[in-house]
């Protein structure tokens, strides 16, 4: 397959899937088969892009010329491929999980759910392969809107309130700051194409670079930098598979991905370092990492705790981008993948506990480990990976991020990373400990291991945590290409 065709297919395939899912809504088994087939096909298509990227073949597809110098165009580059390669396989896994979860939970409107899911994945692919900031913004917004029905899936008042916060923060940051930054950038440089080394001329005043960069970093609300992080906990009213894929992988990673992309390809590392645009922002990221971890400790609701943990972990990636050094970009890019597999495992487990034991609060988990050993084993693996212990994937990205702070001579931030890792242990590992070692099995009925589909999904992602530890070469190579 020609890479151009593959690029278009990454967007079109999930959309076609969405239409087919909508048409086959009446026959659930057929509908789910279509979701899975689409997922596998998408993964196959994305895989064909690997060798063109590694060979450095330039591939670009222009879909439409909207305004002079401003086109809707797709292209391949290492960071986008990395993101797509994280999202595509995890979509399949999540679909398997979602089928078990949605049926086990007897959720309403399942067809709408799977349709919106497919559209969201299509938008994610668009974000990953966008050739310029305009195209990226377009798919970024499409992702926000297409995930709204997923967040408010329950249709209750609580869901609607959550949805309002979700949409409110994401849309307002993107319109007020990001769009302003985009138009401003365009009016300064006359282009929005992602270019290695950035698009700003050397004569651009430093204050302008600083303002624009800050507008971008805060305007990309999906990166959940404080104080614009509230949407993420609010979005936890969504069914767990949504939280798992969208709020551990697709949506939040689209955010940090965009931050990385803007840093590397719009501004260029040298521009940022030489103008000092990143100076104060680094401390915002550092504060986000620490504060979010501290808030996570206070949350008894498991999903809320995971949400704040995500906010904190996203801070790592933003920090990596903001350091604007090769090591920082390398670590940040790798963390996209390693955090994704770890966090999705945790969310899967959270959902499994909800389906299997109907419990959502950490304080109720005492003794559950004996009834749901597989779920809690998976949870332990995910948690260890997030903390960054060997032999799990999370170690690598944290390793490079820590190296980056040392290289940049920012020891305070190194301290932040270390303290935060300790906090991770305190609020994540405590959960399986309680489940396995505290309390007694009171033999209450109705608590059983989650449906098999959920277990399979968890097994796959926890295996992913281990595999990425032993075979990080490919990831390292892609991330290294981004860093240059």
């Amino acid at each position, binding site marked *: 397959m020609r890479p151009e065709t593959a690029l278009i297919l990454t967007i079109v395939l999930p959309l076609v899937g969405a239409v087919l899912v909508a048409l086959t809504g009446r026959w659930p088994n057929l509908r789910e088969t279509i979701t899975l087939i689409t997922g596998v096909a998408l993964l196959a298509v994305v895989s064909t892009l690997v060798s063109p990227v590694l060979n450095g073949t330039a591939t670009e597809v222009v879909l439409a010329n909207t305004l002079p110098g401003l086109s809707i165009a797709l292209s391949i580059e290492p960071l986008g491929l990395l993101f797509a390669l994280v999202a595509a396989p995890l979509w399949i896994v999540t679909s398997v999980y979602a089928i078990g979860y949605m049926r086990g939970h007897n959720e309403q409107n399942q067809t709408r759910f799977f349709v919106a899911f497919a559209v969201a994945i299509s938008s994610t692919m668009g974000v990953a392969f966008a050739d310029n900031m305009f195209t990226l913004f377009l798919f970024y917004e499409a992702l926000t809107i297409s995930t709204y029905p997923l967040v408010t899936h329950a249709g209750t008042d609580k869901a609607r309130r959550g949805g309002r916060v979700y949409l409110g923060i994401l849309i*307002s940051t993107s*319109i007020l700051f990001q769009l*302003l930054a985009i138009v401003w950038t365009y009016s300064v440089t006359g282009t929005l194409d992602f270019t290695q080394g950035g698009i700003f001329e050397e004569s651009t005043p430093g204050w302008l670079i600083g303002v624009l960069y800050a507008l971008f970093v805060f305007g990309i609300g999906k990166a959940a930098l404080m104080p614009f992080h509230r949407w993420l906990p609010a979005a936890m009213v969504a069914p767990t598979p949504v939280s798992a894929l969208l709020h551990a992988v697709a949506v939040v990673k689209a955010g940090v991905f965009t931050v990385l992309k803007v840093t590397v390809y719009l501004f260029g590392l040298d521009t940022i370092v030489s103008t000092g645009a990143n100076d104060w922002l680094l401390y915002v990221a550092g504060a986000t990492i620490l504060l979010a971890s501290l808030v996570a400790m206070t949350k008894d609701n498991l999903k809320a705790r995971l949400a704040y943990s995500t906010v904190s972990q996203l801070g790592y990636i933003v920090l990596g981008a903001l350091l604007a050094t090769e090591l920082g970009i390398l670590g940040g890019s790798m963390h996209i993948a390693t955090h994704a597999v770890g966090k999705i495992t945790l969310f899967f487990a959270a959902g499994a506990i909800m389906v299997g034991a109907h419990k959502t609060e950490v304080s109720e988990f005492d003794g559950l480990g004996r009834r749901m050993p597989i779920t809690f084993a998976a949870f332990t693996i995910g948690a260890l990976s997030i903390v960054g212990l060997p032999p799990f994937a999370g170690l690598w990205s944290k390793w490079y991020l820590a190296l980056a702070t040392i290289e940049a001579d920012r020891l305070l931030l190194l301290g932040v990373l270390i303290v935060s890792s300790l906090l991770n242990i305190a609020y994540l590992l405590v959960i399986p400990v309680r489940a396995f070692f505290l309390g007694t099995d009171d033999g209450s009925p109705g608590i059983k291991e989650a449906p098999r589909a959920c277990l399979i999904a968890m097994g796959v992602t926890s295996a992913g945590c281990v595999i990425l530890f032993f075979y990080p070469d490919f990831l390292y190579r892609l991330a290294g290409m981004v860093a240059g």
Partner: protein
Amino acid sequence: MEQLPALLIVVPLLGAPLAAMLPNGRLPWLLATAVSWIGLAIAVLLLMQVLDTGTISYAVGGWPPPWGIELRIDVLNAFVAFIVAGVGAIVMPFAGMSAAKEIGSRKQSLFYCLFLLVYTGLLGITVTGDIFNMFVFLEISSLSSYTLIALGRDRRALTAAYQYLIMGTIGATFFLIGVGLLYSLTGTLNIADLAARLPDVVATRTLHTAFAFIVAGVGLKLALYPVHLWLPNAYTYAPSVVSAFIAATATKVAVYVLLRVLFTVFGADYSFNHMPLAPILMGLSVIGIIATSITALNQVDAKRLLAYSSVAQIGYMVVGLTFITTAGVTAAVTHVFNHALMKGAMFLALGAVAYRVGSTRIRDIEGLGKAMPWTMSAFAIGGLSLIGVPLTAGFISKWYLILAVLERGWWWLALIVLATSLIAVMYVWKIVEAAWFRPLPERNAGVTEAPLGLLVPVWLLTAANIWFGIDTRWSVGIAARAAEMLLGVAP
């Protein structure tokens, strides 16, 4: 072919009395639809001709200008005429079912007669090259729209029409006083001729007075904040088709008149350098954009909400033109076109709602997302365009407006424009939430999707919103040419 400019006015003008003479029933509608389609065909041909060969001058009755009446068509007004005729051609088929239901069966022929008169008037204002003529057509369209609004089902339509009548008449009178003063100064009414003679009398107080009267008069017609108060009532209580047509065209034509008067008659130099107009218009518009956006947020009737939003949108257009830069005027003209598309689509969608539910109060829209999915999704897409979400026409307008603002380095204004888009998100979302997140109330249990006769026009405009959000070569291209012509730069 060379009679086209005249035919654009003559065909609907003859159609109007003909419609009045036809018996009530389907016939007047068929006639009006046929006329509107012929009108569109003529407007398209004219636009193509202008784009191809440049300005067309047509001497009415063979009397050469400046003595006779001239119809003068350049890129700008050919574009506006196309907007009016295009919206007319889409709205007229919609009227068939909608008006039959909302307006008594005994008033059908009268209704289409009036409708064609408004249509004639708006096209007349657009194509004429004579400023007195402009006034005459302004009155034709205004008088007939007062009556059209009074045909609304709600009895408040009468007070709305009366309010509009008073305000509109004041506006028209001001305009006429200004025209009279200009005539006393120069002895001519031909716009091109006026433009040539006015520089000789720049220093006179009479000209200052004329300028003030004309701008104030047009401001009233334009519903410029704070003289916009007639508009929300008029849009709310008029029959659905009328709201859609007037919202999409009448204020756009008024914006055209403003552009024509400021840039062609008086000239940008006089309007903005001799007269302190830019800060006044800019200040009023910015306050207006903020104030009316917030007012829109508190409305309980969807039509009224859109009406307030229209006032805010007019503010964007006026802000654009006060920059007196190519980017700014391009933004204004582009928004004239795009706003016609989005408001047309949204008002028509509400017309379909009124057809099925009998009301456009937000309470009555509850649950319609499921009951009337096609109508409500068209409304939602129109709403996205109104907000300025990428891939819709509204985004393109916002983009150019912000570019124009940043060109000046006024980042605070850019922030205001973006912040008011956020308010738009909120008020559009209010309706979207009602439609999709509230259960269908008991009293609307039997509501079903609108008939195809209403859906097709709605979706034509909705599709246009998306099309012109992606492919802007045509719309922005023409707007840019019009802007360059008005500012006297390049071709």
